[in-house]
């Protein structure tokens, strides 16, 4: 079984973010990490491999600094690592084409990724890639296991829990689950260090990156939040109620 897991390196959720111009200043990000939903996808990939064998390939599209994340993935047990040099690609359809081409080339028949990246929160990568590789897409799952020729995925729905059966090829996007994520062990770290990272370009993948079909028209920072207001004592209840009704429109 070929298992592909798509990973994105994002500013760590604890890292300080500073804005320069109208963009996040990437050079000032103190810590980069694997996007948290991707961590669940990775854990699920490792469990699939443990249960049924196969090779895991981790694929990311990003700058050189993302190799660190790939090595971290190798430390917990990923077999092959592919970095698609992003060459400044920001258009999500381009990222999807590159990832899809890399998945196809790897011959994987099941793909796992996070439901969205923690920085952009776009949520389009999984569905986009599944479309391009002609795979079924099951979104927002928390668990998956192989059964027969296909897979059973579990996900929470507004009315309870769903069990979804799907045949290959397929792609799953992961929500945060109850699974405990594994830590790298010393031997894993040692092996990871020796693992080669295959670096490919859009040319290598035969993907033509044309001009983007979307462009950012304008960008304005969110309005400054008005300061909080504080009320004390029972006397202020009518004022608070009035404000909640008339100003905040919440009651």
């Amino acid at each position, binding site marked *: 079984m070929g298992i592909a897991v798509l990973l994105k390196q994002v500013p760590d959720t604890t890292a300080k973010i500073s804005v320069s111009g109208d963009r996040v200043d990437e050079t000032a990000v103190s810590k980069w990490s694997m996007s948290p939903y991707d961590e669940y996808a990775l854990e699920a990939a490792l469990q699939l491999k443990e249960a049924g064998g196969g090779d895991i390939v981790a694929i990311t599209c990003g700058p050189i600094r993302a190799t*660190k994340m790939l090595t971290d993935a190798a*430390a917990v047990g990923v077999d092959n690592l592919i970095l698609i040099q992003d060459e400044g690609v920001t258009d999500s359809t381009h990222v999807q084409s590159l990832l899809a081409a890399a998945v196809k080339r790897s011959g994987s028949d099941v793909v796992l990724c996070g439901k969205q990246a923690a920085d952009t929160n776009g949520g389009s990568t999984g569905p986009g890639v599944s479309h391009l590789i002609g795979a079924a897409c099951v979104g927002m799952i928390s668990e998956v296991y192989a059964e027969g020729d296909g897979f059973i995925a579990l996900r929470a729905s507004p009315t309870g829990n769903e069990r979804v059966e799907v045949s290959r090829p397929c792609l799953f996007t992961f929500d945060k689950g109850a699974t405990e994520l594994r*830590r790298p*062990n*010393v*031997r894993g*770290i*040692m092996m*990871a*260090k020796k693992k080669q990272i295959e670096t490919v370009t859009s040319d290598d993948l035969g993907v033509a990156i044309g001009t983007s079909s979307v462009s950012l028209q304008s960008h304005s920072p969110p309005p400054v939040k008005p300061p909080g207001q504080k009320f004390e004592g029972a006397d202020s209840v009518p004022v608070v109620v009035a404000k909640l009704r008339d100003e905040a429109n919440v009651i």
Partner: protein
Amino acid sequence: MTVWEPPIREYDFLFNEVFNAIESIEGLGFEDFDADYLAMLTEGWGMHAKEVWLPINELGDKVGLKFEDGNISMPQEFKDAYRKGIDEGWLATACKPEHGGMGVPTFFSSVTWSEFGTSACMALSVLPALSIGVYEVLTSNGRQDLVDYFAPSLASGELAGTMCLTEPHAGTDLGIITTRAEPEDDGSYRISGTKIFITYGEHDMTDNIVHLVLAKAPGGPEGTRGISLFLVPKYLPAEWESGGVEGISHDLVPEHNGVTCSGSEEKMGLHASPTCVMNFDDSVGWLVGPLHGGMPLMFQMMNRERLATGIMGLGLAEIAYQNALAWSRDRRQGRDLRGIRDPNKPADNILVHPDVRRMLLEAKVNNEGCRALAVWTGILIDQMNSDDPEVAEPAEALVALFTPIIKAHFTDLGCETCSTCMQVMGGAGYCSEFGVEQFYRDVRISKIWEGTNGIQALDLAGRKITQNMGKNLRHLMWPLTEFIEKNRDIPEMGEFNKPLHQGVRGLQQITLLMIAEGMANPHFLAAGATDYCRYFGNVLLGYMWAKMAKVCLERQGEPFYDAKLASARFFFKRIYPETISLAAKIQSGPKTLMDYPAEMF
């Protein structure tokens, strides 16, 4: 709830920006070891310590261990955490690859490992630390069959080790121990005697325990020169009948090898670390190293052990600091004396008070200075193994000199810092909820074991200074004066370099005084030793701060480096000046101590 983040950025700074750790160990057999690998190990171990060890630390203190009918049972949570350490390979970092270890450099295995381990759970960390100590003595001096049989499981953590030195009447003075070893015809020995205060002497974390016992065999000289080392397992191998352990299976006999535990001390801290009275009654043991040659072997291992013990001071001081800081960020009391900061709030945050800042900065700045010296010393311990005498000789000299200083000064500071951090938190610091009172109790032992700090100071002043005709000190003075000379004309370095220079000159003068007066009257040396050790510690930390400042001056503008420069300034203005009072105390000599009538105490 205690908080702790492993100080990964600090190690990154020290390894890569201050000391070039990777380059320093080139050609020393760590070919596979590079900066990425080191970073991953540091992060990985930090994650393990935080997720597995930290959550059981308070439980260990509150629940502790249970002693019943000669058996000690540890909390299940400790057994689980220890097991995870074995499974994930974190207990074996220092051991050689041929025994299943990782063979990583000392600056990781004894410095980073020890700091994170003691911060997260000191009571647990001493168990693998002791096993590694036994592993080291065994693998560098032991018979091949003993090494083959015991080393791999000691390395992985499946087998636990202890160090049995202390006896009821013999603590500091090991020359008077009475535990006996009687030789048998098959080359093994029978050990009999009582040892006290034996850390992890008995427990149920592993199936077997192997004790490294100091004992006297017949025919040896009096005193420490008649001491030999013996390896004594709690349970013997089932197939063992006589002689050695070559080629026999690891199954154990169910009856103990005459090794029993008759009690575990109630104590101030480290409640989950057993402190046992151990009885050896005709127990089978094997000699490790030469007969009557045990003490030199213990000394070999001491550099590493004492470095790791010093780091216990740092580890607990670091977690105490992090908790005091987290708490003080939320605490509002009083107003800034120069004008209200937060008019909308009933009081200002306590960081507006100079005295609170004094306490936090003393803690932070001493911690960072100690960490730097520890990393440097870790590198030097590895360099001692170099084939190149130009590298090995100075490394050996410096390690000899630094070892007692690190043990004594770091643990003194560790205790002071935990106390200071408690003070930062007012009454909350004294209460159990915030953890610092536990750190304060746990850290206290570090000044006592591995040779009391008083003994460390005597080792420095009485031996290490004069050893090899003062060569140790010369190997320090060369790079130190070179550093001072190089920076003399750099104006920005003046505020660090000048006080360092003064301190170094003062150290030279006081050293001469100690030697000269000490020759006529050994009490002069002994009376000044503790203050001398602290003086020396301050000069070394001063060197570390000047060195770090040098690196940071070139990278100004980034908050991390700016803060380091501010810390360096604090060190030289508000910590280092204690050298002046220390010098005065040393100069006053032994008179006021020894003239006092003993019967009037």
